[in-house]
């Protein structure tokens, strides 16, 4: 399909979105990520039944943490898409990048390069 999506999106693969941990999400912000999103399978289509639902709840938890820290909760989101939806993956990457551009850089300074 050779679809294009913004180069600033760094993809971290997991066996299931349910594997994502609150700590993974928070560490990204600690290291200075401007935004983080979790792309899970469509709700009801989880191979492990509830992985994507659990991922969404973890994202909601991190939203509350960010809010308590005075950081816009919109900087983290959960999206559902099927693995056959390449164009949607690229579209979400573009749209989320635009949302984060609108919010500006993260108020947390970037980690120094190792």
């Amino acid at each position, binding site marked *: 399909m050779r679809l294009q999506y913004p180069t600033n999106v760094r993809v971290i693969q997991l066996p299931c979105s349910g594997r994502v941990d609150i700590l993974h999400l*928070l560490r990204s912000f*600690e290291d200075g990520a401007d935004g983080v999103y979790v792309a899970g399978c469509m709700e009801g289509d989880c191979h492990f039944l509830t992985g994507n639902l659990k991922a969404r709840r973890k994202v909601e938890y991190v939203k509350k943490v960010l809010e*308590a*820290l005075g950081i816009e909760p919109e900087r983290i989101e959960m999206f559902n898409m099927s693995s056959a939806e390449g164009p949607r993956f690229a579209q979400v990457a573009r749209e989320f990048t635009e949302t984060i551009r609108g919010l500006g850089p993260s108020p947390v300074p970037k980690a120094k390069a190792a």
Partner: protein
Amino acid sequence: MIVGDSKPLEEILEMIRDKGKVLVLGCRGCVTVCNVGGEKEVGILATALRIAVKKQGWQTEIGERTLERQCDPEYIEELADDIEDYDAVVSIACGVGPQFVSERFPEIRVYPGINTTFIGGALEHGVWVERCQSCGNCLVHHFGGLCPIARCSKSLMNGPCGGSANAKCEIDPNVDCVWHLIVEKMEKMGRLQELAEVWPVKNWLTSRDGGPRKRVREDLKQ
């Protein structure tokens, strides 16, 4: 287990403001089981604090450590090697933890990172309920294995009050009337007549009314 709730991040941030080096200290006991103060929660709280510190531009450094238990001096002692590097400790154990740490290391400021709420159990993952009030004189066998002290809002010993309606307590429609459950259970067990026994006023001296409690086992003492 002892169940607790995390304190709001804002409250913890206020505690560590202006501190140079802070240790977030977890416990592998009850608070690990109720997902509020174990190694994982130490990581989450420490990371959240680091994000806040970076955002505010503070120079605070956040360390992480989890002890086997914070209610035993032998494990608290493990902190002796590097605790002087820290200006403050945020203990996310139950209320015993911060007290034991500050008793052993009186020069360090110790802050509680959780609110200890009750002695209870998990109904399912993520749901905990109060089941014991540590009254010091267990009587659950008289009430079909249900505790009227911990589970009745008024700790009534002789049947339900007028606030019991449709098996629920008047304080909250989500709270079961334990006396309804006791009667149902005793009836099912064919022991209903046992509830005719009138309990005199309970002696609360074994509970907190007798002041702080202490237990000494001569056979175990060193």
